[in-house]
C-alpha cells in the first residue's frame, strides 16, 4: 500500500495528461495508472495498481509483444506499437461503444531501482478516420480517372474512325466535283445562250463553294484530335511568325514566360492572325504581341497598325458564313482556342489597326519560374 502511494505521488503529474499513461514493472504488473486510461478502460487506478497487464489484456500476451517489451526491461530502447499492426492492443471504448484506435509507445523509466516501462497510449481514432476517408477518396478518384482514361481512349478510336470515314467521303465528293466542273467548262464551249451562261455561272459558283467547304472540313477535322498540351506562348508565336514572309513589318513581343494549356494547333491560331494582318491590314508597319494577368485569367493581346476591322464586322469575322471575306481562318482560330475554354474577340479601333484579345482562364495558364 505504501509503495502504491509512493508511485501515486511520484507520477501524479501524469494524471493531468490527456493520453492514457501507465507504468509497468518488469513482471508486467501495473505500478501507476493515470486518470485518462482509467476513464478509457473503466478500470479505476486503485484496482489497476498491482494488476498483471498480460492477464487483463490477452492481446498484449503474445510473443511478439512480450519479447519487445522485455528488451526494454533489459535496458533496450523505447518500443513503438503502431495502429496498423496492433489496432486494439489495449481495447478502450469510446462513449459510442466503438473501440478507440491507439498508438502505443513504451519508454524506459528508472523507478524504485529497476527499469520500468512508461506506456503512453495516444487516441488517434479521429486521425485514423480522416486518413481512411482520404484514402477512400483517393482510391475513388483513381478509379474514376482510370474510367475516364478508358472513355478517352475509346473516344479517340471512334474519332479516328469517323475521321477516316470523313476523309473517304470528302475524297469521293471532290472526285465528283472534278467531272462536274469539266462538264460545265465543256458546255460553255458549245452553248452561248446568255440564260444558259447564267445557269453555268451559278453551277460553277456552287461547285467552288462546295469545294471550299469540303476543304475547310479537312482543316477543321484536325482540331481537337490530339489532347491539349502546355505551350509556351512567346515561343509558339515566334515560330508561327518565322514561317511567314513578314516583309519589312516589325515584330514586337512583350510577353512574360507564360504557358497556356491549349490544342496543339495553337501555332495555327497565330498563323491565322498574322495572315489576317498581312491580307487585310493594307498599311501595316508593326505587329505586337503582349500579355498580362487580368481578372479573368491571362490576357493576350495581338495588335497591328493596319486599317483595322470595321465596327459592323467585329463579331462577324468569327462566323463560319463570313468566310467569303476573311476565309475560315478566324472561325477556325476561335474553335481551336475554344477547345480549352480560351476566348478571342476583336476590339481594335477601325482605321487604327486590328486588336485581338485572347483571354485564357485561370486554370489554363501558368507563369513559368525557371531555376
Amino acid at each position, binding site marked *: 500500500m505504501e509503495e502504491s502511494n509512493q508511485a501515486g505521488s511520484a507520477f501524479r503529474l501524469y494524471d493531468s495528461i490527456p493520453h492514457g499513461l501507465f507504468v509497468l514493472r518488469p513482471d508486467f504488473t501495473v505500478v501507476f495508472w493515470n486518470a485518462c486510461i482509467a476513464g478509457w478502460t473503466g478500470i479505476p487506478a486503485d484496482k489497476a495498481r498491482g494488476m498483471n497487464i498480460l492477464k487483463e489484456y490477452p492481446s498484449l500476451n503474445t*510473443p*511478439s509483444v512480450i*519479447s*519487445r517489451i522485455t*528488451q526494454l526491461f*533489459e*535496458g*533496450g*530502447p*523505447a*518500443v*513503438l*506499437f*503502431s*495502429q*496498423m*499492426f496492433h489496432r486494439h492492443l489495449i481495447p478502450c471504448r469510446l462513449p459510442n461503444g466503438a473501440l478507440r484506435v491507439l*498508438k502505443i*509507445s513504451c*519508454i*524506459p523509466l528508472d523507478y524504485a531501482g529497476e527499469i520500468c516501462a512508461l506506456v503512453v497510449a495516444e487516441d488517434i481514432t479521429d*486521425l*485514423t478516420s480522416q*486518413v*481512411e476517408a*482520404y*484514402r477512400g477518396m483517393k*482510391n475513388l478518384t*483513381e478509379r474514376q480517372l482510370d474510367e475516364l482514361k478508358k472513355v478517352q481512349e475509346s473516344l479517340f478510336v471512334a474519332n479516328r474512325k469517323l475521321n477516316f470515314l470523313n476523309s473517304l467521303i470528302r475524297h469521293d465528293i471532290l472526285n465528283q466535283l472534278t467531272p462536274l466542273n469539266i462538264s460545265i467548262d465543256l458546255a460553255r464551249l458549245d452553248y452561248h445562250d446568255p440564260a444558259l451562261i447564267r445557269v453555268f455561272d451559278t453551277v460553277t459558283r456552287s461547285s467552288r463553294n462546295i469545294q471550299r467547304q469540303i476543304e475547310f472540313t479537312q482543316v477543321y477535322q484536325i482540331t481537337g484530335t490530339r489532347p491539349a498540351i502546355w505551350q509556351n506562348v512567346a515561343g509558339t508565336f515566334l515560330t508561327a511568325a518565322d514561317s511567314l514572309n513578314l516583309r519589312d513589318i516589325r515584330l514586337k513581343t512583350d510577353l512574360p514566360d507564360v504557358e497556356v494549356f491549349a490544342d496543339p494547333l495553337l501555332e495555327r491560331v497565330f498563323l491565322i492572325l498574322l495572315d489576317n494582318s498581312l491580307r487585310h491590314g493594307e498599311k501595316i508597319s508593326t505587329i505586337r504581341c503582349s500579355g498580362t494577368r487580368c481578372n479573368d485569367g491571362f490576357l493576350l493581346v495581338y495588335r497591328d497598325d493596319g486599317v483595322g476591322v470595321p465596327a459592323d464586322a467585329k463579331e462577324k469575322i468569327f462566323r463560319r458564313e463570313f468566310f467569303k471575306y476573311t476565309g475560315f481562318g478566324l472561325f477556325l482560330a476561335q474553335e481551336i482556342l475554344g477547345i480549352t475554354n480560351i476566348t478571342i474577340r476583336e476590339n481594335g479601333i477601325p482605321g487604327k489597326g486590328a486588336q485581338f484579345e485572347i483571354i485564357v482562364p485561370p486554370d489554363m495558364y501558368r507563369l513559368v519560374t525557371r531555376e
Partner: protein
Amino acid sequence: MTKEIDVETLDAIRELVNIGVGKAAGQLNQMTGSHIRLQIPLVSLVRFSEIAKSESQLLSDKELSAVLLEFRGTFSGITAVVFPSASAASLVMLLTGEKEKSPELDAMRVEALKEVGNIIINSVMGSIANVLGERLTYSVPVYNEGRFLTMTKLQRQDAENEWVLLARTNFLIELLSIEGDILLILEVGSLDRLVESIRRASHA
C-alpha cells in the same frame, strides 16, 4: 576514406549487426505473418563527410524516409534505418497486407514504418549492447523525411569527423526486394571505444 580496422573487428561488428537483424526479421515475421528475410550483404566504415561517396547509392537520394534513435553511453551516436521514400510505402503495404495501386506514405503508414524501424534498431542495438555488456541510454525514436545528410547533420557540430558504420539491408518479401540501410553514426572517439569493447568482449 576508410578507417584502418582489423578484419576480425569488422567481422565481429558484422556478426553483431547480423544477430540483431536476424532477431528483427523473426519479430517482423511473428508480428505480420509475412515471410521476410533480412540480408546484410555489406558492412563498411566510412567518414560521415564522405558518406555521399560511399557505396550506398541510397544515401545520395533526395527523398528518404528514416527512423532515427540517439544513444549515449560508452559509445554514443545515432542509429538510423533508411529507406527510399518511394519504396517505404510499398514495404509497409506488403507488411500490412494492404492493396492499393499508388501507395503513399500517409500518417498511418509512417507510424507503421516507424515501428518497423524501431524493431530493427532495437534488435541491432540490443544485440550490440548485450554482447558487449554495455549499458546505453536511448532517446525516443523519431521519424524524418528528406536528404540523409540534412536530417542527421542537424545539431551535430562535429559531424564531419564522425565515423559511420554502414550496413546495407535487403528486405526480401514475397517477390519483392526492398533495399534499406542501417547506419550507426558514432560520435568522435566512440568508434575507438566500440572497437575496444569488441576486443574486450572477444577476449573474455
